[in-house]
């Protein structure tokens, strides 16, 4: 199995540890992973701002970088959803379609393709899970509280395999954090208020760490936590699933 | 082109290709004991059920429980002994001072405690709305489980006006605080009648 690692631009530049943990975790699970070095971005920031028509270059580049892999895996549910829903090509639509089908967010790749049922990780802390909307409602990585349907959660299923990790329950298990891409500056007041409320739910329930399968939500919440001088930290789920803390 | 023609022609131009109606929902929720569910739901929405075996029992209830009420009217002949005579057929505004109206319902629905009442059971359309308290008599055998069954019962009945009534008039417009008696009845009593012969 040949896996192409898709690391979104802001993870590449701000959160290399999340990317390194993703790579190492996949390697630990016996997967052959390559990182196409000329990748940049999925184009979502432009598309969500109404400029999808400007994403042609990004799309062609993405296809060039990733079309040959069996699977494409990324530690960002939001970027994966964008590729799944909006990647098209003028010249090579068939290849684009192939990419859309084989792109996976990390945790769903672990549960659905690798069918991971045990991990060697240990993380002796209280952890709150932030269900990022694009992962949850878009990729259906967890059941949504709005629906009358059986509950499940792929990220939690994996976190439960981590030794000594304690999950905290939240008052609102799947409320949006307010990042929303360009929304975070275009609607600054609401974005921050949503972030503060989300963070408070975790903090009030005793979380020491907030984790998610989407680094962008975490970056936003981290910004708020640090402004509040909080001791609570954010950590990408890959870093917990790959944790070897003793 | 007048507006009617203009609207219709634009719809014809713009409506998508015909998509067919879905099949009716299969197996909607049914309750083993619809009457019990009805009573629970009614109590949750601010009403009271009173099981009775006869109209005499209802008369008795009215005489004792509503003793202090001045104006009690009913559309039910069996209750004429305890209710006002000759009230019918007046200007609807004149019913403004009715304290209690007792009417019959065709049937009740367990899932939401709604009762189906049509114009001929009200005598005047405004009656169940303008009274201070509403009491409705429904046969125990006429309580169904859900709204699909309810509309199967209504079928293609002809009526000038019909309404589902579920509990007393209410509002929560002020800070989501529930208050009974917004404009219409402040409470609702449902007599569930099970005659000995039934």
């Amino acid at each position, binding site marked *: 199995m040949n896996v192409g690692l898709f690391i979104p*631009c802001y*993870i590449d*530049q*701000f959160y290399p540890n999340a990317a390194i943990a993703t790579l190492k975790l996949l390697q630990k699970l016996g997967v052959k992973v*390559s*990182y196409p070095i*000329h990748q940049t971005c999925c184009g979502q*920031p*432009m598309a969500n*701002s109404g*400029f999808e028509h*400007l994403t042609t270059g990004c799309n062609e580049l993405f296809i060039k970088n990733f079309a040959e892999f069996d699977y494409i895996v990324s530690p960002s549910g939001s970027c994966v959803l964008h590729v799944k829903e909006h990647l098209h090509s003028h010249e090579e639509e068939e290849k684009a379609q192939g990419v859309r089908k084989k792109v996976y967010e990390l945790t769903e790749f672990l549960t659905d393709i690798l069918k991971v049922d045990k991990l060697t990780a240990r993380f002796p802390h209280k952890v709150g899970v932030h269900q990022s909307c694009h992962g949850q*409602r*878009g990729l259906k990585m967890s059941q*949504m509280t*709005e629906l009358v349907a059986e509950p499940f959660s792929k990220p939690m299923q994996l976190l439960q395999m981590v030794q000594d990790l304690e999950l905290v329950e939240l008052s609102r298990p799947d*409320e949006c954090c*307010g990042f*929303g891409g360009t*929304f975070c*500056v*275009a609607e*600054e007041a609401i974005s921050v208020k949503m*972030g503060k409320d989300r963070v408070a739910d975790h903090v009030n329930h005793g979380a020491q760490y907030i984790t998610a399968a989407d680094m962008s939500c975490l*970056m936003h919440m*981290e*910004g708020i936590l640090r402004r509040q001088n909080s001791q609570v930290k954010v950590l990408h789920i890959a870093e917990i699933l790959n944790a070897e803390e003793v | 082109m007048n*507006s009617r023609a*203009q*609207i219709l022609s*634009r*719809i*014809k131009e*713009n*409506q*998508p290709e*015909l998509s067919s109606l*879905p099949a009716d929902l299969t197996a909607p*929720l049914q309750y083993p004991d619809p009457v019990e569910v009805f009573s629970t*739901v009614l109590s949750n929405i601010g009403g009271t059920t009173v099981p009775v075996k006869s109209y005499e029992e209802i008369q008795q209830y009215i005489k004792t429980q509503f003793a202090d009420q001045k104006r009690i009217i009913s559309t039910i002949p069996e209750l004429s002994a305890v209710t006002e005579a000759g009230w019918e057929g007046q200007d609807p*505004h004149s019913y*403004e001072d009715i304290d209690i109206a007792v009417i019959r319902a065709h049937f009740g629905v367990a899932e*939401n405690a709604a009762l189906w009442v049509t114009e001929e059971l009200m005598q005047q359309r*405004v009656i169940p*709305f*303008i009274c201070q308290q509403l009491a409705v008599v429904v046969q125990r055998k006429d309580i169904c489980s859900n*709204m699909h069954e309810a*509309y199967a019962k209504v079928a293609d009945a002809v*009526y000038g*006006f*019909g309404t*589902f*009534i*579920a509990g007393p008039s209410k*509002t*929560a417009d*002020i800070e*989501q605080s529930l208050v009974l008696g*917004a*404009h219409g009845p402040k409470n609702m009593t449902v007599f569930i009648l099970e005659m000995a012969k039934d």
Partner: protein
Amino acid sequence: MSTGTKDHAGLADIFNEDEARVDWHDETLWFVRAKRDKAAHTLPEWEALRENASKIKDNVLSNLHDYLLQFEAKAQQNGITVHWAADAKEHNEIVTSILKAQSVTRIVKSKSMLTEECHLNEHLQQNGIEVIDTDLGERIVQLAEEPPSHIVLPCIHKKKEEIGELFHEHLGTPQGESDPQFLTAAARVHLREKFLTRKAAITGVNFAIAETGEFVVCTNEGNADMGAHLADVHIACMGIEKIIPKRKHLAVFLRLLARSATGQPITTYSSHFNKPRAGQEMHLVLVDNGRTKQLGRADFRNSLKCIRCGACMNTCPVYRRSGGHSYHTAIAGPIGSILAPNLDMKEYADLPFASTLCGSCTNVCPVKINIHEQLYKWRQVIVKEGYADKKKAVAMKAMEFTLSHPFVYKNAGKAGRWVIKHAPFMVNNNLNLWYKQREMPEPPKQSFSEWYKKNNNE
């Protein structure tokens, strides 16, 4: 985005100046969302019911022409006078002329979002006709001279103390009295007098049945019925999309409507108006006002399936924290944001952007409108039609260039520098807006690609 003074972000900023109030507003509406969840979970067939409702509405939109004709014919047979209005102006003129023909100068009106959309009250007042809104919430905002902030809970933005103050001023209740029970009782007395003295009543319409020509009005307070059954003239106003094919389909919609709206199993009154009562005039106004245009927009037509339950507002994390008035349109929240640009794309260009696209609205919608996908699609349309901020367009072009050229991207600077300035969230170098209440992540010593080059021999 809207260049006027009334854009969503600006209005939301003002709303957020009082954080305690935002918390209160958010909690109040979240409480309604929680009640909706509880009600939905009482029905194992909930999702099948939504699917059924969605399919029925698809059928309606695909056969609207014939259903309207069928409805009109039946309603006329039943003794209802049917009118057609191409737009808000014509709707208002029709209503006014019906009232003038009867020399009516004072009327009562129950809740109708359509009449809000058409600004009927202003029109009537300009024509010397006094309108009293009889839904308690609507009466409150009317006294406050504000529009409703929510389609189901019109004064959800008001605190009981403020309502007490209004009632003291207008209804003479004791100063400082703010008990909801007391205030509701005072409104009951105040409005009963109006019901008893007004000769004409306007109501909205929740559903109109093509098969029978009847229309259904749902209220909890009973105000639509009090108005209609006491008035000599009843005028019901509806958008053309309110048609449903058969009477039995009401079972589906009445099961969904109140559960989605407030968590009640059904509204207190679901009144079916088939014929005028003896001696009464009953009019029904069918209104287009942009609906046929929306019907022609393949990506947006199913916004017309909306049954106005308000569930998308209650669940929307943005609505809960910005208030209904921040949407500066009659129908606020997610559904309003996909309806309004159809009416005026320039005026409402900001609304599709007032969302994180979290998708909760789509999940609660009882007729399964893909609201968040339509928000995304409206963004594309608004940009293409030239209603986007010019500076933003320039920034996006620069971003496009860099992100399509890996060497430009990699050479744009050391770790973090390019992203900080340009992407994915720093449109227009709005770093100050990020920084206002948040810290930036600390740039690491090396980016992942730099680490990868060193640690993997590629």
